[in-house]
């Protein structure tokens, strides 16, 4: 029997992403607010509490609810990664760092998330609105693709604006 992923795996993944963010923002501390690494650590710690609560009330919550609150926590972690990426690119205007961040942090985390979520969708015997999940992941991937394109060629946005003004 293949070992199935439990819904709490997404919370565990979210915790690891927050810890990764904390360490990376500490390494790049000149570019971020001083308290940011500690905020991410606190978020990871909240995830740990989240796991403990999930363990205690496992039977009461049911698999459907456990999946959604764990997945929500993971989405929050992903949003933070993208936000940091956008912050570097727009507020700090450090295109090179933003591109490196997108390639080494944002894109791999999205790929890993998509892999595990799709794997969970195939192996889990429980019913949940998989279509909604797939749509949200497709939208996320499109946004990621467009963002990457803009990061790689920042002038494309200006060209698009000029074309719009001419029309």
């Amino acid at each position, binding site marked *: 029997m293949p070992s199935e992923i*439990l819904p709490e795996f997404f919370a565990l993944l979210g*915790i690891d992403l927050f810890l990764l963010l904390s360490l990376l923002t500490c390494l790049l501390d000149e570019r971020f607010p001083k308290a940011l690494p500690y905020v991410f650590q606190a978020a990871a710690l909240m995830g740990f509490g989240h796991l403990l609560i999930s363990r205690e009330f496992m039977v009461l919550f049911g698999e459907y609810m456990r999946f959604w609150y764990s997945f929500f926590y993971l989405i929050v972690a992903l949003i933070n990664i993208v936000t940091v990426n956008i912050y570097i690119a727009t507020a700090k205007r450090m295109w090179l760092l933003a591109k490196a961040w997108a390639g080494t942090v944002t894109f791999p985390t999205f790929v890993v998330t998509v892999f595990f979520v799709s794997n969970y969708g195939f192996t889990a015997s429980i019913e949940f609105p998989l279509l909604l999940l797939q749509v949200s992941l497709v939208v996320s991937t499109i946004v990621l693709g467009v963002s990457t394109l803009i990061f790689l060629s920042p002038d494309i946005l200006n060209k698009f604006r000029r074309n719009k003004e001419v029309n």
Partner: protein
Amino acid sequence: MELKRIVLKKEMKFLGLLLTSLLIASASAAVYYSLTMQPRVTVSAPLIKFSQAPDNPTGSTVYDAWVRLNATSYPNATLTYEKALYINNTDGSSAHSFRLKHVSITPANGTSDVGNWTSIKFLVYNSSGYVFSLNYTVTSNAWYLEPGVETNYYSIPASTGWWIRLETLSPATATTGKVCDIQISVDVQQ
């Protein structure tokens, strides 16, 4: 000097965050692991099991892993059930260790009813003779159990049967109809 201080401060901050990160990550992984454990419990016959013996007290109930012995005691005379119960090692290939461990006894210590008994002894024998015993003796309305008896395990060889000899004794002043309930567990090392 100032630059060195700043670098050192950053290193310390990173080290602190790294340590707390490791702590949080490993604790979370441990919690997740505890969620993924899938215990399986299979019903099987006990390797060390009880069986009826020739001197089993009348009215006793004997199952493989649970026994109730309805013994009697006489005032001023020792009553002996020579072979009250068999304890068999049904494993044909290896020896197993077991011990008799006291769980509970009524009447409770300090009550005058305890004085209705002098001793209740559970002596374990094998074909070579005496092995060990769990002896309840009464001193000043209190039950006394020999220290150390419960902690030792005794190895019973493969496919071998041992037996329990039960000895009871009440004082001459004992009241007829008084009942003593003893609960003993048999701890087996599988």
